[in-house]
């Protein structure tokens, strides 16, 4: 009997497959297509304390085996999320992870406090609440903060330390592939009390419209995701998983059960599916079953048997 249930930062998951931030809204768009309990969890669209309108101009561009996006953290703000989105997001019998972004240190901290208070109040009244925070210090698409926090170790440390103090919820830190020293940053997050790490966010990239003689994106650079970045993500997950003892969540172009096993073998505890949700809107409906079938074929009884074996 093969089981794929697992535990991530103290939160039990029915399977290691999560929907990645920014590709899944708050779950609702996909709930019409399949039961979301088939996923181990859902990571919300990146939220900030105040609402953000997002970037103007082109937001999406297709590249060989990938896409570039510059959405710019368009979101309704944490208060509106708590009032209007969370009740439905917690109704799907799957773990709820809130992706928390920010432009300033203060915004991160206040956002974390709001989420934590609201969650404690819900739990106290016996309702499902936020299971975990994914701290986004790696968004490449906003002007202030965002990626800047995810490049330099000292700046990242300030945010992780402050948010750790502000929340008792399990805390994942989402790392940027642009970090100056990724292994060092991972070790710093662990030392500051992060319960886990997720990586990688999109890779900063560029596309030029040769006819208009200008960048496709108003903000010049945008974030690259999809199958094109999978080998890079796999290498980084491998490096980070060997550098820390907290769990690592692998993200980057994962598009099949085979890809999931690769990331687990590289040391990941769980994975997130991002761009593949666009390739196959029903990805989350079948991936867990496909993973079990593949494990049967490969004679793997438990993910624990292969985790980090490379």
């Amino acid at each position, binding site marked *: 009997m093969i089981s794929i249930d697992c535990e991530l930062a103290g939160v039990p998951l029915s399977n290691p497959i999560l929907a990645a931030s920014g590709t899944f809204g708050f779950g609702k768009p996909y709930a019409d297509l399949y039961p979301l309990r088939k996923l181990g969890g859902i990571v919300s669209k990146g939220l900030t304390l105040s609402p953000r309108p997002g970037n*103007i101009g082109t*937001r999406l561009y*297709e590249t060989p085996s990938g896409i570039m996006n510059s959405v710019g953290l368009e979101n309704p703000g944490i208060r509106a999320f708590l009032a209007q989105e969370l009740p439905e997001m917690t109704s799907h019998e799957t773990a709820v992870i809130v992706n928390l972004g920010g432009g300033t240190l203060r915004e991160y901290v206040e956002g974390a406090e709001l989420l934590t208070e609201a969650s404690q109040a819900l739990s106290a009244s016996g309702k499902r609440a936020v299971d975990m925070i994914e701290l986004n210090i790696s968004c490449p698409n906003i002007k202030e903060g965002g990626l800047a926090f995810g490049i330099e170790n000292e700046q990242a440390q300030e945010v992780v330390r402050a948010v750790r103090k502000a929340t008792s919820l399990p805390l994942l830190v989402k790392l940027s592939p642009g970090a100056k020293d990724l292994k060092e940053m991972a070790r710093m997050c662990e030392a500051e009390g992060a319960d886990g790490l997720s990586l990688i966010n999109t890779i900063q990239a560029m596309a030029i419209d040769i006819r208009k003689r200008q960048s496709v994106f108003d903000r010049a650079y945008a974030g690259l995701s999809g*199958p094109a970045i999978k080998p890079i993500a796999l290498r980084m997950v491998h490096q980070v998983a060997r550098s820390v003892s907290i769990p690592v969540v692998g993200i980057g172009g994962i598009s099949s059960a085979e890809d999931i096993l690769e990331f687990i073998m590289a040391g990941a505890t769980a994975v997130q599916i991002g761009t593949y949700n*666009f390739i196959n809107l029903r990805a989350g409906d079948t991936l867990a079953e496909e993973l079990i079938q593949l494990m049967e074929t490969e004679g793997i009884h438990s993910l624990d048997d292969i985790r980090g074996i490379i």
Partner: protein
Amino acid sequence: MALVIHNVKLAPGIYRLTVQGSYPARMGQFFMLRCWDTYPVLSRPISVHDLTLDSISFLYRVQGTGTRLLSALQAGDRIQLEGPFGQAFPDPQGRTALVGGGIGIAPMLLAARGISSASVFLGYSGLPFGVDGFNEASHDVTVRSGGTIVDDIDPGRYDTIYACGPVAMMQSLAQKAEGSSAKLYVSIEKRMGCGIGACNSCTLTTAGTNRKVCTDGPVFPAREVNWNDLHRL
């Protein structure tokens, strides 16, 4: 996966794809189409052109890699359809005109089939294509090659106008309809990631706020559309 019945070339770069199956689509809605594995990454949003009890048709122009792959489909091939998605044209009130420009005629056939009294205006920069279906559906079809079809329309004669076509055509029609009693609805096209409202890629500013073309649209009241938002792309 659905079965391709036929995929007919109507004009250079213009194809009509007919797929087997019964689909509950309404005029103005679209499907996400894909007949390939993981590359290109994104499925292609294509509006519903026509419906029968056991088939659905899409009219499309070959624009890039995705539509080129679609154009190679042959009878008996398989294709994946997800949908219908998006807001349909609202039920018409009173006298109705349907205006299509170029490949923008695509969603108008289903509308013409549903509103048999509608006047139809089809504008083309070159030779017309896809006109036969409209002549079946309506007795009042105006076809123009070259110039602008907007010149042939007197908005004051209609209560409801639906339009789809180049941004310049829709904007000029919107200006012409200003001050008339006609309610103009336009169908907007933008690059989409998911097609279901999850990715925030196809954002359009309407009436000062962000809307999603995929789930709030693709049909919008023309007076709410910020045309500059579309010209920039």
